[in-house]
């Protein structure tokens, strides 16, 4: 399994060094993803989803330290020398950003930005790179692509910008695509179009995708597997079916019950009491314990380890077994 994985992440940790002390925005994330698989990282705002993706690309500012392993095609991205790292970024490992307006350079045309990437990675002439850029814009269904190639980001609509961003990310045929809330900034009808486009491209190109969202519905729709993130830790990972039907971690349950999709229809929506902890002042034990109905003394004082329930299925909760028993 480990050898054929497209991405294999071990113990990924991202620390921000700050005057008030270090802060772990991602703490020991471990997962692996097969070729063509889609995994969603689900979690509330500030739980460390974006930092996880950026850390996987080694993209954090220099006051952050990243430890652990991120193996893509057998090579550890985090230990690559700068030139090889640059080759891998945008090559086999590529990223779509949440806000395309902020992530695209405002003073270069879309065509220039795509062609630049292709030239950098494949060393072909600028003119033929521009031809490829045109084909890519057509592939992501941007109308009158030849004209749009010469557009600056501010001359496009939000949905079109995100399509252009996707074209940019796919320019050099990545095997792994990281998508950081690619639809959050868009309105609902456009969101669905972009999701459909992403799924279509993923299947066509056989990419592995790590998709970040805080929308349970989107996660259920698009992914094969789900990782639930809370306060910098993966508290539960498993297949969509398992997690949607039998969530084991109390936080996953709360998350599902607070959405129309998860809560059984006709039942009242529940909310999780309290609010997520600040990453710089985490409780000593389980980070979720202050909000958890099942929390006992052990939860408040010790950090629960990962319990491996099956391949790719883990949970970090002392009460997971009882929860499982309940579910059966």
């Amino acid at each position, binding site marked *: 399994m480990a050898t054929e994985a497209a991405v294999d992440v071990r113990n990924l940790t991202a620390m921000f060094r700050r005057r008030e002390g270090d802060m772990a925005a991602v703490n020991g994330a471990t997962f692996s993803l097969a070729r063509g698989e889609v995994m969603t990282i689900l979690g509330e705002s500030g739980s460390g989803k974006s930092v996880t993706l950026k850390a996987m690309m080694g993209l954090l500012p220099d006051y952050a330290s990243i430890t652990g392993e991120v193996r893509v095609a057998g090579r550890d991205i985090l230990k690559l020398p700068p030139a090889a790292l640059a080759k891998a970024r*945008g090559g086999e490992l590529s990223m779509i*950003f949440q806000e395309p307006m902020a992530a695209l350079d405002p003073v*270069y045309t879309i065509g220039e930005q795509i062609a630049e990437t292709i030239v950098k990675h494949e060393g072909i002439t600028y003119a033929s790179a521009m031809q490829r850029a045109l084909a890519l814009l057509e592939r992501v269904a941007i109308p009158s692509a030849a004209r749009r190639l010469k557009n600056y980001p501010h001359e496009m609509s939000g949905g079109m910008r995100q399509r252009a961003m996707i074209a940019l990310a796919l320019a050099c045929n990545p095997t792994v695509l990281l998508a950081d809330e690619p639809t959050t900034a868009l309105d609902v009808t456009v969101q669905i179009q972009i999701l459909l486009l992403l799924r279509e491209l993923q299947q066509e190109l056989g990419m592995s995708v790590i998709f970040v969202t805080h929308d349970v519905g989107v996660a259920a729709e698009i992914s094969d597997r789900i990782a639930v993130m809370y306060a910098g830790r993966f508290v539960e990972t498993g297949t969509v079916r398992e997690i949607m039907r039998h969530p084991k971690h109390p936080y996953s349950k709360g998350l599902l019950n607070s959405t129309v999709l998860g809560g059984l229809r006709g039942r009242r929506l529940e909310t999780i009491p309290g609010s997520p902890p600040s990453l710089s002042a985490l409780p000593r034990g389980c980070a979720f314990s202050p909000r958890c109905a099942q929390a006992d003394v052990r939860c408040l004082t010790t950090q629960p380890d990962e319990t491996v329930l099956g391949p790719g299925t883990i949970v970090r909760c002392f009460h997971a077994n009882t929860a499982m028993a309940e579910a059966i």
Partner: protein
Amino acid sequence: MLVFVIRRLLQAIPILIGVSLVVFGLVHLVPGNPIDMLMPPEASPEVIAQMKAAFGFDKPLYMQYLLWLSRAISGDFGLSIFNSTPVAGQLMDALTNTLKLAILAAILGFSAGIALGLIAGFNHNRWPDKIASVITTAGVSMPHYWCAIVMVLACAVLNDWLPAQGMGDDQDPFLDRLQYLVMPVVTLSFIPMGVVGRLVRATVLEILGREFPGALAAKGLTRWPILRHVCKNAAPPVLALMGLQFGYLLGGSILVETVFNWPGSGNLLNIAIFRRDIPVLQATILVLASFFVVLNLMVDILQAAIDPRLRR
């Protein structure tokens, strides 16, 4: 873009007319009639009237303006009241002298400022940033004349490296005359270096704080291509500042020109004010203000060429 350029060019015309009106009007608002100032107190009214007629002061104001403007456009700024030599010649000499200093000081100051600003911005809070910031801060805060005097002391009085003042003789070999330029150019370059350096640093930091430089790294670009992107984004505000600074340099610095005995436009302006030499004053201000307008126009067009969002 072409439409933008044409529109900007057309917009410059009313501005230039406005400038000429203000220049013409300002001088006439100054209390004291220049002829009265010039004539001995015992001069007879007839002589004064004659003088006024000779210089055109007897005509109605709007006629004076139109006459002055039409001559000015053809390069004739009349005669100096003080010594009856053509104003155009004096102005030409002074401007050429100042232009030599301004262009060299701009090249030196801007390139040093841009380099220091980039070094500081890309090494935020590390030692290169601190060193560069000390230099740029010193550049904006050291008084001009003080630098000039210290430099004269160090390079011309205590040592014999450079000539203390003047512009050299036209017969001197080119390299010798070049030596006269060194100290005034260096002195004048301090402020542009400082302000440009500080703005470049702040702009680079602001841009690096946005998301797209990270996104550029995410698509596999290395340091230098990312630097190119950042520079292009930082260019518009920096260009605007450089245009302004170059305008100031063209105006000439009275202090620096005095210390180095350099007969440039600052000097000319100063003398004209003291002598109430209205034709000289008008011509100098008009030409300098027109330079400013043209400079602004060029900056606007360059900015729009770089940043499409400014093409409105």
